């Protein structure tokens, strides 16, 4: 199954609840809405993860430093999260693993969101074969399970940064595309867009002045969901040994390594596992909060709900 299952957003709607019929953001309605407690919790968790990842290296720890005199040591003051089978400090590896995971996740989510946005706007503006082609591309992508595609590509291309980002983008751009396309198609049928067209505005002008501002809130929401999907897929690849390669730390890879020792040295898998769960839940909560504020409902992995 694809990690990102998307259905068409409600094409008959003029757009998110906080966007009026002319595509303008209704700031009064927006002010009435907040991202909610969940959203703030999500934002807090993500901030914590980001700050830890950013300042972690300042602690001077080396995620690759091996110490064969201190293998499989339980958490202690010297090693907050214990040590692994090579005597490496699990805390330091979780912190540095977060940098890798977040970098890959953010880059993948940005590229996937931009790709989805561009294809969706092109489909909405040009219609006809362009829309048909982009939609069929999305259908094809949905038909191929992301994880299977990733395994095949990475097995034979190698597992450096660019191929990993490539498979993550392939696995998650459809969500943005589907959500944005449905809304954008509705907007281009609005009278004010028609009026702009009659007044001589070109497609790019319409996209810049009307479509992009209108879809930005949706894009923000889709981005968080994309990021969550990308993080989970990246962790899955690491777990399968196809993500970031050892000895560089990676959360999924650390969970896989520690799995066989879950009964004797649970800290090896537990802490990176918790890090993945916290970050993914944080992204989901923030996404739900943003959706509540901008859209008036959730943009789930299944699309824009009405």
């Amino acid at each position, binding site marked *: 199954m694809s990690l990102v*299952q*998307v*259905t068409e*957003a*409600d094409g008959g709607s003029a757009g998110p609840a906080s966007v009026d019929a002319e595509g303008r953001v209704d700031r009064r309605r927006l002010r009435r809405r907040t991202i909610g407690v*969940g959203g703030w919790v*999500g934002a807090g968790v993500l901030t914590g993860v980001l700050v830890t990842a950013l300042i972690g290296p300042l602690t001077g720890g080396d995620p*690759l430093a*091996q110490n*064969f005199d201190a*293998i*499989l040591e339980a958490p202690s003051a010297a090693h907050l999260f214990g040590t692994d*089978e*090579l*005597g490496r400090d699990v805390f330091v590896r979780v912190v540095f693993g977060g940098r890798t995971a977040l970098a890959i996740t953010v880059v993948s989510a940005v590229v996937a969101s931009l790709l989805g946005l561009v294809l969706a706007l092109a489909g909405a503006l040009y219609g006809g074969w362009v829309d048909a082609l982009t939609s069929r591309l999305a259908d094809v992508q949905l038909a191929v399970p992301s994880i299977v595609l990733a*395994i095949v590509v990475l*097995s*034979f291309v*190698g*597992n450096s940064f660019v191929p990993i980002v490539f498979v993550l983008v392939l696995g998650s751009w459809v969500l943005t595309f589907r959500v944005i396309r449905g809304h954008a198609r509705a907007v281009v049928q609005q009278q004010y867009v028609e009026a702009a067209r009659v007044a001589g505005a070109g497609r790019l002008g319409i996209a810049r002045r009307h479509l992009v501002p209108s879809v930005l809130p949706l894009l923000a929401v889709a981005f968080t969901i994309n990021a969550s999907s990308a993080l989970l897929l990246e962790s899955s690849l690491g777990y*399968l*040994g*196809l993500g970031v*390669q*050892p*000895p560089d730390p990676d959360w999924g890879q650390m969970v*896989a*390594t520690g*799995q*066989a*020792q*879950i*009964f*004797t040295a*649970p800290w090896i*898998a*537990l802490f990176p*596992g*918790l890090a993945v*769960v916290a970050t993914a*839940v944080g992204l*989901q*909560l923030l996404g*739900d909060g943003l*959706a*509540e504020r901008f859209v008036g*409902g*959730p943009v*789930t992995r*299944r*699309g*824009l*709900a*009405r």
Partner: protein
Amino acid sequence: MNRPDAPTHSDPQQKQTGKPVTHRPSVRRRPAVVVALAIAAVLATVLSACGGAAGSADTPKVGDELRLGLSRQITGINPHKGGSPDSSGSIVGSIYESLTRIAPDLSVEPGLATAWTSTDPLTWRFTIRTDSKFSDGSPLTADDVVWNFQQLLNPDYKGTSGAPLRKYLKSVTKIDDSTLQFNLSQPALDLPGRLWTIFIVQPVFAQSHNLDNEALGSGPYKLDKLDQENGATLSLNTFYAGTKPAFAHVKYTVLASEAQRVAALRAGEQDLILNLDPLDLAQFKDSDTYDTILGVGTQPLTLAINERKTGTPLADPRVRQALNYATDKTTIINSLLQGAVQPLPGQVVYEPYQPQDPSVRAYPYDPEKAKQLLAEAGHATGLTLTVALSSGTYVSQDAATQAIVAQWAKVGVTLKITQQPFPAWLQSQYGPDDAAADLYYIMWGGSFRGDVTGNFGPFRSDHIQSHLRAPEFDELTTKAQNAATEAEKTTYVNQAIENAYSQAHAIFLYPSPFTGVVSKGLEWTPKPNRYLYAQQVGRAAQP
């Protein structure tokens, strides 16, 4: 191809050692559900981690069905295609018989053949049993054996076990119902040993069935069901002529990851599993249910070298020697391998399984010497190399390789790891030199004492998975294979060993650790070649 891990028996060193979400309520509940599930997952992990000791079953119980764990997926059970001891090979050897068998100490012992003699260097006669029957009740005759060899000698036959045979075997003829004559084109001093992998299948069945997933042999068991992803079930061959095995039913289960193997043992779901990381054995040491095995395996682990990549620094023997000096085998062995083995003695053969050349010793750990050699070779500023790993294939390989990465970094060599699933990893070795990795963490080895082809074949330039350029080694091993006397064979083998050492045609690491966990309810003589034949597992005597 030569199997990456061929067998060897013996255990002298038993150290024993969509649809859119349409209703609002779910909007607010979903985060709560996610959080709850996440917390539940974490709690479950922690609770299970804090759970009881390994194998908490009350007493060792082994039922009517013997449960054996395999550590690699089954690739088919064709008796003419060979197979890894960790998967297909163990099943094939329980269903089929061959003329000879390999004992735990890697000596050759009778199988279907009860005796053999060489009348001249190119002629051998084998006396075979006349009471053997296939599992359908039909007798196994001398004609059946001849038919099997005829197939394998046909260059168009798809059974891959025939390729090495055709290099030295001209024909097999029936003298009488119990005597076969082997006519060779090259002398083969170790012919009986070479024949242990040639399993005899019933000819009529073979011509009308797919031997990759169907079987009819004369071994102690017959195949009931095969699922290559998950395992196989066997039951007794009621026509088997030998000693009746202890278990009427056998279930082989594929447990391809270390975590799967550990979990299955902790749940008491398996009676015998091999290939666990030495560090993971500790959790079963005090078990009431299981005994643990930690010993020396029969095959060596090396880093196989790609010497043929365009512009590779590994074409220079000084660089290869430097990498040998830069590898601290002892530290890896004492920590990750729990002291189970000793470093390889500068050669891929070692006692007690294979005769080793006493004049060659292990490359000591000497980072300064390594730096000096690298500088002489023009790499004073360092170099970058890649090593390919097959995820989960060899005991402790991931951690051991990461230790090597750290060791080589000290002499200025950046070693980058590429993990691949087994098929992709294998495929990259078959492919062109320039597309292959610089190094492969791999286990190779012979299956019987003095097995020149098995011991040294993978290190020849002409091996299908080799990326070596070793003309002198090739010539010496060819001479050893075709030697007419044992003395001549030993001379050429030792010269080949000395050549491989001085030219450093491999990064010599250590023998593979032989590890396993066995139910106390079983009686099993450990087989360091890892072949897990069901007929060799008995029930422990009751107190």
